[in-house]
């Protein structure tokens, strides 16, 4: 039986290969009850394989998984009744109505909210009689999440829930997640959107090539960059790294192709100094942008690539 103090999700030493492709290469995770944990990484990093192992849909080659203190090989149906799973790329039956779809999923669980309550949770009450095929992308995704909520789960798995959605639909879905978290639920979210992870996740792990590169709260991870701002520019003349590093406020310098990245604590000091340096060399700027440091910059710092490069 699951002890109430056991973690929501615990896995140790997960490995999974498909032929010669090593999708997951030795992965440990511990997700506490009541937290939202973000698993980040580019496409092909092994996120979906990892999540499907945790969901009991894929058997790992090696390693152990415990969900709420229970094991898949012994307690599959008991675990399933406590999970809500939203899978990537699943099409719900097109010629079924919204409320019919929810009644179907609700029927698989002994306990849970009514269909009306589920519709309310995801703000689809006015679309209850609509066919699934007539829903917008955002409405479909909310319906998919509502199906995952049908058994009043303790843990909600969301795999790339807002990919392909417009900003308004994304916010609507995030609100659904936030209400679930307020009710004490646990979420495992996989995404390659940094803003999504920064908004929802209490802790994140960044994955690449089947392994976890770094794990912590979003602020902790951004803190490892050493600066709250990033200046991204493309100079027409060669400027050596040490020169850039000596500019006031600069903490780290990185490159990707012809782009240069400076992380800095003091944007107002670094930026004029950079422009001055380039002017002195009679160099030009093909591009120049600045932004607050994000998890994307953390990933870039660790891998030399950006998350959305895939």
């Amino acid at each position: 039986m699951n002890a109430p103090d056991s973690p929501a999700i615990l896995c140790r030493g997960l490995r999974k290969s498909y032929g010669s492709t090593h999708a997951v290469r030795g992965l440990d995770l511990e997700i506490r009850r009541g937290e939202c944990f973000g698993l980040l990484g580019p496409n092909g990093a092994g996120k979906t394989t990892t999540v499907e192992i945790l969901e009991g849909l894929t058997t790992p080659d090696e390693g152990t998984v415990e969900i709420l203190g229970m094991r898949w090989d012994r307690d599959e149906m008991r675990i399933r009744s406590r999970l809500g799973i939203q899978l990537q790329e699943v099409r719900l039956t097109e010629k079924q109505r919204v409320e019919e779809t929810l009644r179907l999923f609700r029927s698989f669980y002994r306990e849970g909210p009514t269909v009306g309550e589920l519709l309310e949770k995801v703000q689809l009450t006015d679309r209850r009689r609509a066919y699934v095929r007539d829903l917008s992308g955002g409405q479909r995704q909310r319906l998919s999440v509502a199906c995952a909520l049908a058994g009043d789960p303790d843990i909600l798995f969301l795999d790339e829930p807002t990919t392909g959605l417009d900003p308004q639909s994304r916010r609507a879905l995030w609100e659904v997640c936030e209400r679930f978290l307020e009710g004490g639920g646990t979420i495992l979210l996989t995404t390659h959107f940094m803003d999504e992870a920064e908004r929802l996740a209490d802790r994140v792990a960044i994955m690449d090539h089947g392994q976890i590169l770094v794990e912590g709260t979003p602020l902790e991870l951004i803190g490892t960059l050493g600066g709250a701002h990033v200046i991204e520019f493309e100079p027409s003349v060669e400027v050596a790294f040490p020169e850039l590093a000596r500019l006031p406020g600069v903490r780290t310098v990185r490159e990707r192709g012809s782009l240069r990245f400076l992380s800095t604590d003091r944007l107002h000091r670094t930026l004029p100094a950079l422009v001055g340096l380039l002017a002195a060399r009679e160099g030009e700027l093909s591009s120049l942008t600045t932004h607050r440091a994000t998890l994307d910059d953390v990933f870039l710092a660790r891998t030399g690539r950006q998350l959305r490069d895939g």
Partner: protein
Amino acid sequence: MANLASLRELTLTRVRVMLREPEMVFWVFVFPALLALGLGIAFTNPAPDEIPVAIERNSRAAAWAGLLDERLELDVRVLTPVEAELALRRGEVALVVAGSPGVVLRFDPTRPEGRNARLVVEGALQEAAGAPRPLATRVEEVRQQGRRYIDWLIPGLIGFNLMSTGLWAVGFFVTKSRQTLQLKRLVSTPMRRSHYLLSQILARFVFLPAEILVLVLFAWLIFDVQVAGSLAALAVVTLVGAACFTGFGLLASSRVRSTEAVSGIINVISMPMIILSGVFFSPARFPDGLQPLIAVLPLTALNDALRAIYNDGLPLTAVAGELGLLGVWTIGTFVLALRLFRWQ
């Protein structure tokens, strides 16, 4: 009861998807009726090289048999009057020679094979008698209801329809659900897997009455084919037959990932039975060595049971063996499908 609720909801889902698919109306209801119409009108009964004829056993049977056997185009057998009548009705023979005194030629004039047999048999008998028209032959045209080819054909078409619809409707739906990952989504919940498979059979039952009724009414109104036995018995047999072929549909789709692949498997399952199990012509025409195989095929059992009730007016007890065989096939395919089933 969460358990039964899930079975109900899964069944309803299947029924809705079917009802909301307009093509389904054509394949399930219109197509079999068109097929019956075409065959009924054209009677394109594939005629073998040798025309089978029967001689009723009497004092002159051996002599006639010797005479007719010399004709290469005839395949002659001597049968008792009861057997001969049954053989004629089932299309196993095209004509029956009977009579004492005189000669009676009994056949269905709406079948080209019957008319051919009459010309050949009559010619042979007259020629043997020598002089011009010394032999008094009498022709009995079998147009009697319940004894024509169309009477024999309709139950076979019902069997054929139960098989095709079971295989295609279930096979396609399940494979498509797997292809679009809907199955994977369902098994990520605590849904009982057997309920999913059972719901396919239950949903099949929902459409069954309408489907069978269309064919029965059509055959009655257009060709005056009537059900000799009870409608309740007919309902029981169609129900068992439908369940059986839904099981085959589940088995056909248990592993495949694409609708193209499932089409191939369904054809492999259904084509031999369409030919061997007596849909369009009697399986008695196949060699004796094949008969034990033909006898265990589910469509043979279903067609035999349907004809026993439809044509011969027999009660359910008379087809207990056939129903038992269908039951074994149903359970066997269902259990095997549940074991083999690929959910992702």
